[in-house]
């Protein structure tokens, strides 16, 4: 989803944080589907990705909660278990790579939060009128012992960012519930049931848009609302904005620059009605 990436690039440029693409990376690989097939292969590919930046002394910033979880887990698991580290390095030797120690891995949402004061000083457009349902998702928070970021049962960081932009963040019942995306692989109906519950709770809370910090959650909310409507006869049509898209709007970028028309549910009309973007 290039629009998510593009919004993040714009936001971090404004915050004077230098980002470069992590070239030659493979999939992280994802922390749900891949270790289910083979844990060792998962650790090995994750370690290869970490080894790409280890020598450059860069940190890894990711827009995906799944990537962050995988890379932090790999860091953690191999750091605790020298035998596993040796096994993985024996595997990596076949492609002339090696991982020595730890690499700092951060979610883009964390980086934003750590720079919230700078961010506040750059806001040019208040997002007043947006009533946001923040969906934290699972891997942004848990397992908290390894992710070591927000409180997994009472998270606040994303809400604080959303409020700093002038938008409201509304509480709703199943706030901490999973979006259901992984169940699409095993039982689509159950995945829709889970999503239906979340959307209903959001609607009851009186929201007008959803904010996520994970591309996989984005897909679930933006593209599967239709499937939920079909199954349940509902008419959910909440625009979904990835956190950096929301921030970019507050920094003055418009829907065109952000490519918001590429979303499944187009946010343009709502943003115009709220005067967040102009009416052209």
């Amino acid at each position: 989803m290039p629009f998510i990436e593009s919004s993040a690039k714009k936001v971090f440029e404004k915050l004077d944080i230098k980002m470069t693409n992590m070239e030659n990376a493979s999939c992280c690989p994802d922390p749900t589907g891949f270790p289910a097939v083979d844990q060792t292969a998962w650790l090995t590919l994750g370690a290869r990705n970490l080894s790409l930046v280890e020598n450059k002394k860069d940190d890894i910033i990711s827009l995906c909660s799944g990537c962050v979880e995988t890379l932090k887990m790999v860091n953690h698991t191999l750091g605790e278990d020298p035998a596993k580290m040796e096994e993985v390095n024996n595997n990596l030797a076949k492609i002339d790579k090696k991982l020595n120690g730890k690499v700092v891995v951060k979610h883009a949402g964390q980086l934003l939060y750590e720079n919230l004061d700078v961010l506040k000083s750059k806001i040019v457009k208040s997002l007043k009128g947006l009533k946001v349902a923040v969906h934290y998702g699972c891997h942004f928070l848990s397992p908290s012992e390894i992710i070591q970021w927000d409180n997994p049962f009472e998270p606040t960081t994303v809400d604080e960012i959303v409020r700093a932009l002038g938008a409201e963040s509304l509480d709703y019942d199943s706030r901490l519930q999973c979006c259901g995306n992984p169940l699409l692989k095993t039982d689509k109906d159950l995945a829709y049931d889970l999503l239906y519950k979340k959307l209903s709770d959001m609607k009851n809370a009186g929201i007008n848009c959803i904010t996520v910090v994970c591309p996989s959650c984005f897909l679930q909310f933006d593209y599967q609302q239709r499937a939920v409507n079909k199954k349940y006869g509902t008419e959910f049509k909440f625009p979904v904005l990835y956190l950096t898209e929301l921030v970019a709007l507050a920094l003055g970028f418009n829907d065109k620059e952000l490519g918001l028309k590429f979303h499944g549910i187009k946010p343009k009309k709502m943003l115009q009605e709220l005067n967040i973007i102009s009416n052209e």
Partner: protein
Amino acid sequence: MTLTIDYDFRKQIRSYNASLDYCFQCSTCTGICPVAQLTNGDFNPRKLIEASLLGLKDMLIEEPKVWYCLTCQKCVELCPQKVELTEIFDVIKNYCVKEGKIPEAFNSQAISVLETGVALPFSDPIMKRRRQLGLEDYKTVDPKEIKTLLKSIGFDKLLRFDTPTTDKKEGGK
């Protein structure tokens, strides 16, 4: 169905993740589990841990409920005994895979990573859209490197290439 107790299976799970031993069957995990709620307890993480403790290999592998776990980690957060349920479930799933019981969606995703290095390969339309949005071209891994690496650890042997793979998922946007 007769239940065969396979001590060796239990031992093997423990050798990957010793936290299994600490479960005292309090059911906190099942209480918080969203899939248990949705399925009225048909999916039940406590029972899966119990079956692992008892070494009920056939039950775990023949009737692969374990694949319904979202890996949302809520149970892991709350387990008073710090049982690493999701990792134990991964060990069980790895066994299913070794026995040729891999659900198609997991199989096709793994094949995509094996062949291309990524789960959702960058398609031409995506590259085009990246340029439209002012993003520079991006170089992902050389697929050959990943294939060499994964083949050297026998990853390809775990997958099924006989079933049709559906490589176009909803992630194409």
